Structure formats: structure tokens, C-alpha cells
């Protein structure tokens, strides 16, 4: 095997390997790869930054959404409260008006009743007078003695 003919193949190969590898490492790999490494790092940073930005944007959106819902709920509550208050106000107002009207009507009824009562009393007085006069006349006709009007009135009042 020519590989083990070290006397003839070792130094020429090792010497050229050393030279070429030094050129490869310092002249090629060290010249090119760091550029690439920088770009790869930049890319990783950019991707990480983009993901962070997207996450932040999503958080903001969630926050806005939550605030929107909270505000919606609050205004809904407010509206409900306003409706309830308006309803209560309306009920109270109509109650007051009803009460007022009722009071007025009652007053009128009481007035009318009072008038009726006076009228009845007057009518009763007149009736008694008429009855006394009738009784006086009747007694006068029957007995020929005209009783005194006051006595007749007293008798009628006692009889009624």
C-alpha cells in the first residue's frame, strides 16, 4: 500500500496539508463565516423582536377589548338604572296626581254632602213647621180651639 510508504508520502502531503489548511482557515473560513454568523444573529434578533412586538400588540388588543367590554357593561348598567329611575319617577308622579285628584274629588263630595245635609235639615225644619201648622189647623177644626203655634210645634217635634 502506497499509504504506508511514509518515507516518500508523509512530508509532501503533511507540508501541503498544513499550508492549504492554514489558507483555508485564516484566508477563507475566518474571512467568510463571521459575516454569515452576524447575519444569522441579526435574523434571530429580528425574529425574536418581531415575535415580541406581535405579543405586545396582542396584549394591547386584549386590553382594549377588555376595556371595551367593561365599558359596554357599565353603560348597559347605567342605562338600566336610568330606565328604572324614570319608571319609578313616572309611577310616583302619577300616584301624586291620582292622590291630588282623589283629594279634590273627596273635597267636592264632602261639600256636596254638607249641602245635602243643610238642605235636608232645612227641609226637615220646613216639614216640621208645615206639620205643626197642619196639626194646628186640624186641632182648630176638630175642637174649634186654635192651639198655640209653639205648643203645636213642640208636640210635633215630640211625635216626629
Amino acid at each position, binding site marked *: *500500500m*502506497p*499509504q*504506508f510508504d*511514509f518515507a*516518500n*508520502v*508523509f*512530508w*509532501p*502531503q*503533511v*507540508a*501541503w*496539508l*498544513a499550508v*492549504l*489548511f492554514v*489558507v*483555508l*482557515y485564516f*484566508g*477563507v*473560513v*475566518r474571512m*467568510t*463565516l*463571521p*459575516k*454569515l*454568523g*452576524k*447575519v*444569522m444573529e*441579526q*435574523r434571530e434578533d*429580528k425574529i425574536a423582536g418581531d415575535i415580541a412586538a406581535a405579543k405586545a400588540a396582542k396584549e394591547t388588543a386584549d386590553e382594549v377589548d377588555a376595556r371595551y367590554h367593561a365599558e359596554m357593561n357599565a353603560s348597559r348598567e347605567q342605562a338600566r338604572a336610568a330606565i328604572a329611575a324614570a319608571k319609578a319617577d313616572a309611577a310616583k308622579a302619577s300616584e301624586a296626581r291620582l292622590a291630588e285628584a282623589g283629594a279634590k274629588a273627596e273635597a267636592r263630595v264632602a261639600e256636596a254632602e254638607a249641602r245635602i245635609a243643610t238642605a235636608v235639615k232645612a227641609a226637615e225644619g220646613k216639614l216640621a213647621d208645615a206639620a205643626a201648622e197642619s196639626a194646628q189647623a186640624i186641632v182648630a177644626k176638630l175642637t174649634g180651639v186654635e192651639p198655640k203655634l209653639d205648643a203645636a210645634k213642640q208636640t210635633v217635634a215630640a211625635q216626629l
Partner: protein
Amino acid sequence: MANPMEQFAVKTIKPLEVAGYDVSFTNSSLWMLFALLAVSAFLFIGTAKPQLVPGRAQAAVEYLYDFVRKMLDENVGPEGRRFAPLIFAVFIFVLACNLLGMIPWVGSFTPTSHISVTLGLALLVFVTVCIVGFARHGLHFFSLFWPSGSGIALGAFVFVIEFLSFLSRPFTLAIRLFANMTAGHVLLKVFGTFVVTLGSFGALPYVGGILPLGVIVALTALEVLIAVVQAYVFALLASLYLNDAINLH
């Protein structure tokens, strides 16, 4: 019948001598140079204009670079990132040598089928591991070989074994790659000669060569796979050894 070992012969293209050492430019050097040029083209085109959204060439380089970085992250941890360029260089050089050696017709030579080359690369890894280990931990680096929670006698025994196994690492690393490449190419060459010998059987020409030809096609696919896997294994073991030096278990 051609000798299947002939393909591994190192042929001098331009004789050179430095300080008494023979450092001739050979076909092995030529194909290492091709590997260097291929890797250079791949890397310089891929990183000519690095962009946040990569094009095809950049995506290809990034894929390999990311592959090496992930391997180091998994096996060494965050401190392994510093060695990504080195491991990447070893990985892509071995990969390029392995794959260029698979090209038929053009008389390609596989430098990684020579133990001199693989041992050179393995020693590079080994020396790096030793330097990193002693630089980070000083003499405490030797505790890597000491089993925790054992007596002095057993500990010393295990220490010797562990130390020898540590010293044998560059050789196992080198021999694994060299043996895989050599065996694959020998196998391909043997079946190639089968195609010729069986196909030139006078009474029934060509027919006999069909079966070994089919086998050689399948073997070529397997060898391409091995070329990639062995480059990966080399880089993976290098990062595991680095992990020992950096984290001491």
C-alpha cells in the same frame, strides 16, 4: 488486471525541497488544492452579500454552518461556539476531499485515503484539544483521566488506561477516516476490474459485466454516503474531544 492499490500512488508533479525535507507538489497536493478551491468558491459565493433572507448559495452555506454550530451546542455547550470556525473548516475540508475523490474519469485522487493526511488533521484536532485543556484547567486537566470516587490503586490503574486511550485518539481518528476511504475506493476498483474481465469473456461479450456494473453503481451511492458520514464523524469526534477539554466531564 490493474492493481487496486495503484490509485493511491502519490505522483510527484513538481519536485520541491525545503530544509532537506521533500515537500514536492504531488497529485495529493493538487487534489487538496482543488478541495480548497471548491470550498473557497462555496464560501465566498455564499457569503458575498449576506442578507437577512438568504438566497440559494447563502442558504447552502448557512445550512452547513448551522449544522456545525448545532453539533457544538449539543456536544460542548455554549462555549463550543468559539470553535465553530475550526470544526467547520475541518469538516468541510474532509468533506470536499472525500467527495472530490469520488469523481470518476478525471483521475481524481482522494487525499483522505492517505493516513499522512488524516493523521495531520487528527493531530491538529488533538493539539487543539490539549492546548484548550491546559489553557483552561492547567494541570487540573489531568483529572480528566482520574475516575471519580475510587481508591488510589484502582484510580491509578484506570488513570493509565484512560491516559493511553487519550493518546491513541489521534490515531483512531486518523485510521477511521483513512480506512473507510481506502476500503471504499479499493472495493470500487475491484468491481471495476470485474466489469472489464467478465465483460470481455469471448463467447458471450458484455453480458457478464452487467452484474458487477450494477453493483458498482450501488457501491458508488454507498461511497458518497460514506464520504459524507465520515466527514461528519470526524467533526463529531473532534467536538466530543473538545468537550472533554472544555468541560472535563
